[in-house]
């Protein structure tokens, strides 16, 4: 087993060697501009792009023509929200989204609010799930867009997208879904889900960074978007700019591999993840699962370790790459807004760790991680005044803290 261990696969993933292999010729021999129509260099590149578009469309059961390449899911989310608002402003000015969306959606919505758009941020249940009935109840005659994520990047909770899609359709409202964490990991069918726009990314599924896609429905309804980037009219005019062909080809290959291996890989990851949770909770008391017990991404495990602070815990397991909802690890010095939205207390939000298992993790790494986590938590609990007080029978909630 090699150290360090990478358990942060929600953040990004390494490129699969098979993906890199597919990409390589497109850097050197097949370097043409896929938009060049008059020579074989262009045709060759275009062939690569066409194949990738098919591979990507197939993974989500879409038509290849419905795939618009972007620089990543952040751009796709931006294009969806801003593009819909600009195109359909005359129809209305209201967007519905949820409080646990990725920042690419929340911050875009906030930017639109400054321009006069009204946004409803739906609360989620304590398992992190959006209630479809809340979506229905938030709809007004001015609603032009609903944007709800498929699976959450911190807690892995999978939303009832198909139900929300049905509600959107009944009301004739465009439905955007940020599916960045879900595509490639769980079955995604744009028809079944009833989404009109769907953002996803290559680097979360063992493809290269710098490329993503936006699914844009062409039929029933045909969705139109005001572009953010103008130029040569690439990607049906929705996103101009020469395609980064090697990245496109890699993205395509990554999707193909995910499709072929999804079922067996999901099963393997669930086993590893459940073993990780079981191994940790068998040795440690007061460890709490954040998110939904079953409706959760296969590789996701988000735990709060009461009485210890997340960043300190990460420091104790330096040779394992993990992420925490602790304020100290965020740029804003606020604990995870996702965990807060679930009603997790600030104290437990500070104590949370996200484990993100992926394609290249092994059972041996999981065993090592269990052992290291248990030792680090015990080390920190021995040092924790909160643990001591709790052991003495003090109810921490009744203590008058001198907040600073």
């Amino acid at each position, binding site marked *: 087993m090699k150290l360090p261990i990478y358990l942060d696969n929600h953040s990004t993933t390494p490129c699969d060697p098979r993906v890199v292999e597919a990409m390589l010729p497109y850097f050197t021999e097949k370097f043409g501009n896929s938009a060049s129509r008059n020579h074989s260099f262009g045709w060759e590149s275009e062939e690569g792009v066409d194949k990738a578009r098919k591979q990507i469309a197939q993974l989500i059961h879409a038509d290849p023509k419905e795939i618009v390449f972007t620089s990543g899911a952040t751009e796709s989310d931006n294009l969806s929200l801003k593009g819909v608002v600009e195109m359909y402003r005359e129809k209305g000015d209201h967007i519905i989204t949820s409080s646990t969306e990725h920042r690419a959606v929340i911050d875009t919505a906030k930017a639109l609010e400054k321009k006069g758009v009204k946004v409803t941020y739906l609360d989620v249940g304590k398992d992190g799930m959006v209630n479809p009935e809340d979506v229905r109840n938030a709809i007004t005659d001015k609603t032009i867009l609903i944007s709800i994520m498929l699976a959450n990047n911190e807690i892995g909770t999978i939303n009832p997208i198909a139900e929300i899609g049905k509600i959107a359709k009944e009301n004739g409202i465009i439905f955007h879904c940020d599916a960045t964490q879900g595509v490639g990991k769980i079955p995604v069918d744009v028809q079944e889900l009833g989404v009109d726009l769907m953002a996803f990314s290559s680097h979360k599924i063992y493809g290269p960074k710098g490329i993503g896609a936006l699914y844009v429905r062409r039929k029933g309804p045909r969705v139109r978007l005001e572009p953010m980037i103008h130029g040569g009219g690439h990607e049906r005019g929705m996103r101009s700019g020469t395609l980064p062909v090697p990245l496109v080809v890699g993205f395509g290959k990554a999707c193909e591999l995910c499709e072929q291996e999804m079922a067996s890989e999901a099963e393997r990851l669930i086993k590893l993840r459940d073993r990780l949770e079981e191994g940790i909770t068998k040795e440690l008391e007061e460890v709490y699962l954040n998110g939904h017990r079953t409706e959760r991404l296969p590789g996701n495990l988000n735990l709060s370790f009461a009485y*210890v*602070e997340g*960043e*300190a815990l990460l*420091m104790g397991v330096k040779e394992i790459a993990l992420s925490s909802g602790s304020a100290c690890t965020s740029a804003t010095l606020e604990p995870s807004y996702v965990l807060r939205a679930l009603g997790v207390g600030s104290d437990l939000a*500070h104590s949370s760790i996200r484990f993100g298992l992926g394609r290249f993790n092994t059972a041996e790494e999981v065993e090592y991680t269990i052992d290291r986590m248990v030792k680090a938590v015990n080390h920190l609990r021995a040092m924790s*005044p909160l643990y*001591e007080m709790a052991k003495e029978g003090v109810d921490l909630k009744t203590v008058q803290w*001198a907040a*600073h």
Partner: protein
Amino acid sequence: MAYSEKVIDHYNNPRNMGSFKKEEDGVGTGIVGAPECGDVMKLQIKVENDTIVDAKFKTFGCGSAIASSSLATEWLKGKTVEEAGKIKNTEIVQELNLPPVKIHCSVLAEDAIKSALNDYKKKAEESPKVESAASSS
């Protein structure tokens, strides 16, 4: 964020980690911070003849908070009550090489020292059998 060697050392080998009985004679206890804010420090001193003969800490917080309080206990030992009151957070920042975002950890440690000293002084005033209380208050 990369931690300084000293922070890592205090984290791995915390000095004077533990607790005194609060009601013990000559013991001053300071608890500062709040769980919601992500850090709580408990710092305790044991005073004999106006000198801090022992100090202990327990901290819930990041590595820098742990290191700040661990370092504080080292510095407190051997100091008089008056000297201890002069420890400044900036000295902790300097010693541990704390980056700007971690300065609040050193502030918390200074608060914890002050709080422990005040607790000791209050107790000393209330129970006259502890010697040397008057001189330090």
